[in-house]
């Protein structure tokens, strides 16, 4: 029988190993202390990944096509009737919204503040998560050719999902509000108090920061984006206060928020684009 000695007979080189370990440590320190120095390298790597993202669009097209083929005419008729009813209900709701917008514009005029700019909504499909699932980044099937730009806000039917961080010709990457590096300026709808909601790396929970423990916050309070800082548009749902915990030693309360948007399983999303 042949001896399976396929592996190299090279000896150990502790000196070489040590050099590379030190090199890796230097890179770690650089990435921690000066992340901007390595930003271009990361951007280039993501661009190199673009063909794979592009390829990932086709299976979802294929499955969508097969699903359509299997759907019966009766099911399509039912869907059509349900969607017509939903459109009617939404149109009725929009009538009251028109009235509210008119009133709002009138008030903005009284306050001598500029009116909120209009926007378009572009439908996009979530292809999948990013290569690092703990990063709370998803890949969308719309890119620069569809007018997607870095910084645009993405929502679903329930609230804000996040912001576009990379754009490629036909795909883009969306950083969810649940990511540890993401924070949104919010208002508590009931009291109007300003605060910051930040991600915790968990799609099920966000945290409401910098709220004093004596502040008027209750479980069930709805949080909407305030638009402060100009990063995200105002008035979209962010989440609901789910848990409040205070310690004697801390001035701020530890407040947990359930996200409004479906951060875990959104299939289709809307990209807010300027008109």
């Amino acid at each position: 029988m042949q001896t399976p000695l396929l592996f190299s007979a090279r000896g150990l080189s502790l000196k070489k190993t040590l050099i590379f370990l030190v090199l890796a440590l230097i890179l770690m320190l650089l990435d921690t202390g000066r992340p901007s120095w390595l930003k271009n390298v990361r951007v280039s790597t993501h661009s190199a990944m673009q063909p794979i993202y592009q390829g990932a669009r086709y299976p979802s097209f294929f499955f969508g096509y097969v699903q359509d083929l299997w759907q019966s005419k009766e099911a399509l008729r039912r869907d059509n009737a349900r969607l017509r009813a939903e459109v009617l209900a939404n149109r009725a709701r929009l009538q009251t919204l028109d009235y509210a917008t008119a009133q709002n514009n009138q008030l903005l005029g009284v306050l001598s503040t500029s009116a909120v700019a209009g926007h378009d909504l572009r439908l996009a499909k979530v292809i999948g998560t990013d290569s690092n699932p703990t990063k709370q980044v998803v890949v969308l099937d719309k890119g620069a050719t569809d007018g997607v730009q870095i910084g645009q806000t993405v929502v679903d039917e329930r609230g804000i999902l996040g912001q576009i961080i990379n754009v490629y010709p036909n795909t883009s990457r969306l950083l969810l509000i649940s990511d540890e590096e993401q924070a949104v300026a919010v208002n508590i709808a009931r009291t109007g108090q300003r605060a910051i909601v930040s991600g915790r790396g968990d799609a099920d929970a966000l945290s409401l920061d910098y709220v004093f423990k004596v502040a008027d916050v209750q479980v069930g309070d709805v949080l909407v984006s305030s638009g402060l800082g100009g990063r995200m548009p105002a008035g979209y749902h962010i989440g609901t206060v789910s848990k409040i915990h205070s310690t004697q030693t801390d001035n701020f309360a530890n407040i947990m928020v359930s996200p409004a948007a479906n951060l875990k399983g959104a299939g289709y999303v809307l990209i807010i684009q300027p008109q």
Partner: protein
Amino acid sequence: MKRIIWLGFGFLVASVLAIYPLPASIALYRPWWLVIFLVWALIFTRYFYVGLAFLVGLGADLLLNTHLGHQAFCAVLMALGTRALLGMIKTPSLAKVYGVGAIMLGVFFTSLWILQLIAQTSVQAWALPTTLLAWGVIGFIHAKFDKAF
């Protein structure tokens, strides 16, 4: 030359498998294909050593968007450990060699978790069992098709 081309192809396939977008429910359990490729190349080829292990680790850091240097550091440790353990095997067998690979995958993830805890970044705990499972399946297929064993 043919082997180098195959290794390049293997790296490409592992990279595609590592970054192909998956639904969130599955993505957490995705095996770390680049690490599997690296340990396989460290064991079964003559070209891979600390230098190339460092480069593959660095590539994995960039592709998987982990802290730069984390996987590179663990890959170098893994290269060193693999070489040391292979040197101890007196009567090589496929089971022993794959056992070494499994131990080194454990070393890689343990050192990565320690680095991630120090850097206070999220730890990907589910990757180890699925990566070990994938490594075992590769070993099983290898044993089935390689007549030398």
